């Protein structure tokens, strides 16, 4: 395999879903299949990244995402270092660049970066030799979330049809109607999911109150935008609910949380409007009773827990592809023929 065939193309980093394209996303899903098998083993761990060091660098706390990445790195036998940047103290003194250079001076192969500001992982990638994985940057993107969402959808659809995932590939997404509901404006999950799902051929419909949509949707690969959830639900294959991020000021964009819940919350009544086969997803953590009703979260068609468990396998695939399939050409040439089998 040449670098041109590599799933991430010329990219040494995963900063945006646009780094991947449909081919890259499909390859991540294929490698994820192998790691899902690993997770089922008596010993769910492989020595693939022995001796490598993965650092999680979080300038914004997210225990779930951090644990998922750290579990992924450990199951690949990488050494894991965990660095928490209290954003306010960083603002006071040490610059992001100094922090990043200090951390990478310890010898780091991959940096998993979470930051409250859009584009921070892009900047980090300019400063270091290590591979950089965007674990969520401001309102911009959360590419591994979108990858695990796509993987979870494919898993659910192929199980239903009884076809091997690999045989289906990305065809399962062709024409799939996915409604993404909620605070689109402030959602990195929405941006990555829209890019990934549309790249795979799905039709994406955004559903939100006017004030939670971005001012401009120019250039977004959408099939429709709606302010009326009830009108959309009857034709969707997947209803993807976003978290209303009240802790980050989403409340200022709404008259009240109750009004939001009554118009955009997926209640049992609304869930009944969906076709029988339609799936329900949420990136977590859920505000039960706001964007999703408790009884809806527990329906068999809800994939919320699967999203979490697939998260580890998807992140293993991303780390393995970035660190395991990368190669330093000069080093490799000398060894190639001698070790070929």
């Amino acid at each position, binding site marked *: 395999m040449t*670098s041109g065939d590599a799933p991430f193309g010329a990219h040494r980093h995963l900063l945006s879903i646009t780094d991947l394209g449909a081919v890259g996303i499909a390859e991540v899903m294929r490698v994820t299949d192998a790691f899902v*098998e690993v997770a089922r083993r*008596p010993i769910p761990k492989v020595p693939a990244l022995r001796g490598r060091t993965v650092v999680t660098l979080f300038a914004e706390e997210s225990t779930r995402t951090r644990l998922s990445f750290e579990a992924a790195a450990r199951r690949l036998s990488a050494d894991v270092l965990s660095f928490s940047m209290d954003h306010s103290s960083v603002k006071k003194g040490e610059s992001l660049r100094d922090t990043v250079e200090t951390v990478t001076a310890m010898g780091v192969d991959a940096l998993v970066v979470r930051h409250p500001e859009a584009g921070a992982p892009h900047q980090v990638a300019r400063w270091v030799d290590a591979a950089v994985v965007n674990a969520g940057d401001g309102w911009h993107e959360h590419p591994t979330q979108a990858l695990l969402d796509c993987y979870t959808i494919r898993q659910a659809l192929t199980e239903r049809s009884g076809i091997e995932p*690999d045989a289906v590939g990305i065809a399962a997404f062709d024409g799939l109607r996915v409604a993404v509901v909620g605070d689109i404006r402030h959602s990195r999950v929405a941006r990555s999911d829209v890019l990934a799902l549309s790249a795979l051929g799905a039709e994406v419909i955004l559903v939100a109150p006017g004030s939670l949509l971005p001012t401009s949707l120019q250039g977004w690969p959408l099939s429709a935008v709606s302010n009326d959830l009830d009108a959309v639900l009857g034709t969707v294959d997947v209803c993807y609910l976003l978290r209303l991020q009240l802790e980050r000021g989403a409340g200022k964009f709404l008259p009240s949380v109750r009004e939001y819940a009554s118009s955009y919350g997926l209640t049992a009544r609304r869930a009944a409007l969906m076709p029988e086969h339609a799936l329900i997803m949420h990136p977590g953590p859920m505000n039960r009773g706001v964007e999703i009703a408790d009884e809806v979260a527990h329906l068999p068609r809800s994939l919320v827990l699967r999203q979490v468990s697939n998260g580890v396998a998807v992140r293993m695939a991303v780390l393995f592809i970035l660190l*395991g399939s990368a190669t330093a050409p000069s080093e*490799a040439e000398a060894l190639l023929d001698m070790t070929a089998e």
Partner: protein
Amino acid sequence: MQVLSAEDVGRALVRIAHEIVERNHGLEDLVLIGLQTGGVPLARRIGNVLGEIDGTPVPVGSLDVAFYRDDIGIRPVLPEAVTDIPGDLAGALVVMVDDVLFTGRTVRAALNALADYGRARAVQLAVMVDRGHRQLPIRPDYVGKNMPTRIDEQVDVSLDGVVLGDVVPR
């Protein structure tokens, strides 16, 4: 240059199947594991032959060793397929099947991988072609054909035969 025909390969696999039965005094706890990708069809064929000999089907699985290889990071390594191990390997008699035995590094990786599925009673190795040039202390238990080669030659094994050719220039 074709060095073995499809018929030669078929006969070698039948012989290997009989050797497995003879050496292990039967097929008790036997599991065949083909190594991805070249060993998998050979393992299935041996499994079919053993099933005909014994009258009961022999479990056949496949193993991808990508995550256990020692050249990760030196060159691009990606899994070819999802590993499929039939049941628990604890106490099993595992016969690994591969197409070509060369440096021994793939077999080393496969032994490590198998250990993660449980403690097998014994692990044996069957290969269609042993072409020499070992870099690790590994030897096969069952061999279709011993075939001395130059290190830069390429050996292609399939159920359609064995082809020996010059390595494609990079």
